[in-house]
């Protein structure tokens, strides 16, 4: 049971990053390979604010989200938009380039030394009917669920959210009703960067902040997105939580896997899903018109 709760907490982080991937995939049609590095950069911003400038955690958290939103928007406008038309491979390659560039920048700016980002939730644990639960896990889960609900409200009930969805599913049609599609795509990148930053800030306290921190998380997020269906926001969340719990249980109860083999298990999940059900749990299979 303990493992389930802590699995849900790490699953929440995967879900947040997977959701970021899904948002960009739905609108731009590509997987953003630099999503993890963008998150790492944003987490370093949070670290700089709390450690160097001695901000308290939550103001730094909010400021970092603001920064990451702008960072995502600017990245789309400056780097992605010029290559967006035409071959999808070009965008993919550019995101891989971004991955390397951002990683290089982070190492240059903050060095490769691991740093410690404080957890806002402390390290307390408490006991619910014999199950030992850490406050950190509950907090992590609560923050991700909160962010997901906020996003859902945005997409479902606001004009801009509706325009975001319209631009993603049918850009030409969206322009005809007056939606400025390129700005909607930039907005999508901004929201994705915010999700990534949340994932980064929630991950850093437990694994330690270093320039490679998000790389395994990105693989888990890929697995979560593929499991849930790469076009389904709900799928990303369910996929993330499922994967978190599954990996935790496997890591503890299946002796030979342990902590080291979790990553290959995630890759195995990607492989199995792609072979058996390419559209994932919640994705709709692609229908080709003849």
């Amino acid at each position: 049971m303990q493992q389930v709760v802590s699995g849900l907490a790490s699953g929440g982080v995967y879900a947040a990053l997977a959701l970021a991937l899904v948002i960009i995939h739905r609108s731009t049609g590509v997987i953003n390979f630099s999503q993890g590095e963008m998150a790492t950069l944003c987490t370093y911003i949070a670290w700089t604010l709390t450690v160097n400038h001695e901000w308290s955690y939550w103001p730094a958290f909010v400021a970092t989200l603001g920064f990451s939103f702008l960072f995502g928007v600017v990245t789309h406008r400056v780097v992605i938009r010029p290559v967006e038309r035409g071959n999808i491979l070009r965008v993919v390659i550019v995101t891989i380039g971004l991955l390397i560039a951002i990683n290089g920048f982070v190492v240059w700016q903050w060095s490769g030394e691991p740093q410690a980002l404080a957890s806002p939730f402390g390290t307390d644990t408490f006991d619910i009917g014999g199950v030992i639960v850490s406050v950190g896990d509950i907090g992590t889960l609560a923050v991700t669920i909160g962010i997901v609900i906020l996003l859902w409200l945005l997409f479902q009930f606001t004009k801009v959210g509706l325009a975001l969805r319209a631009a993603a599913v049918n850009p030409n049609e969206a322009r005809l009703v007056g939606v400025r599609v390129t700005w909607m795509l930039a907005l999508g990148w901004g929201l994705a960067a915010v999700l990534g930053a949340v994932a980064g800030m929630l991950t850093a306290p437990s694994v330690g902040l270093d320039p490679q921190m998000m790389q395994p998380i990105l693989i888990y997020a890929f697995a979560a997105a593929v499991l849930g269906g790469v076009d389904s926001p709900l799928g990303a969340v369910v996929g993330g939580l499922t994967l978190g719990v599954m990996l935790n249980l496997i890591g503890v109860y299946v002796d030979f896997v342990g902590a080291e083999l979790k990553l290959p298990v995630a890759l195995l999940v990607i492989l199995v899903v792609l072979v058996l059900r390419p559209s994932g749990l919640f994705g709709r299979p692609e229908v080709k018109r003849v």
Partner: protein
Amino acid sequence: MTTLLKLNEVEAHYGPVQALRDVSLTVSEGEVVAVLGANGAGKTTTLRAISGTVTRSGGIELDGKEIRGGPEAAAKAGIAHVPEGRGTFVELTVTENLRLGAYTRRDRNVKKDIERMSEYFPWMVERGGQRAGTLSGGEQQMLALARALMSRPRLLLLDEPSLGLAPMIVREFFRIVRELNEKEGLTVLVVEQDARIALRSSSRAYVLEVGRVALTGTSAQLQGDESVRRSYLGY
């Protein structure tokens, strides 16, 4: 009647291919005007030039003001374009499609207008939660029309609304368009292959041939002239 839309020697290109040559036409406020012609005559391109979804040159004025820029600008200026082959967001619900139609509006009457759509489309409100993709072809075409109305357009552009629909549904569609024109003074420019129904529903018409205006006149005149019907309209 005051002129609402004026095209002056408009040309349009798809890459190196010229699709429109010197097309000039006018639509007056409160009028229903049809654009007829064979496949490839430039009917759809004419509408696309007006809504800015194709590269064009020449003058296009709405209310005496030049329209420039892409479809976003045209939508803002009050042009609602229902494109060929149903203009709906199939993954979104009926209500969401209607809300998107009102995207350029800043007033607070959007909800009221959505409810008002049931005057013309009685089924629409109670099925507001249904995904547009699950509607029948005819219902999707009606939804595309309703969505265009939601923007409270100065000018409605309809591109081949009859395409792929049963004759009965086509008649119903044009009946609603006429009713909107009579009751609410809606100005419509409609492109059609089905010349018969388009002439019956419009007051004037232009006939295009390989990207030029070959012929123009009142719909009654064109309908009555047998040689015109034979050589241009094919019925």
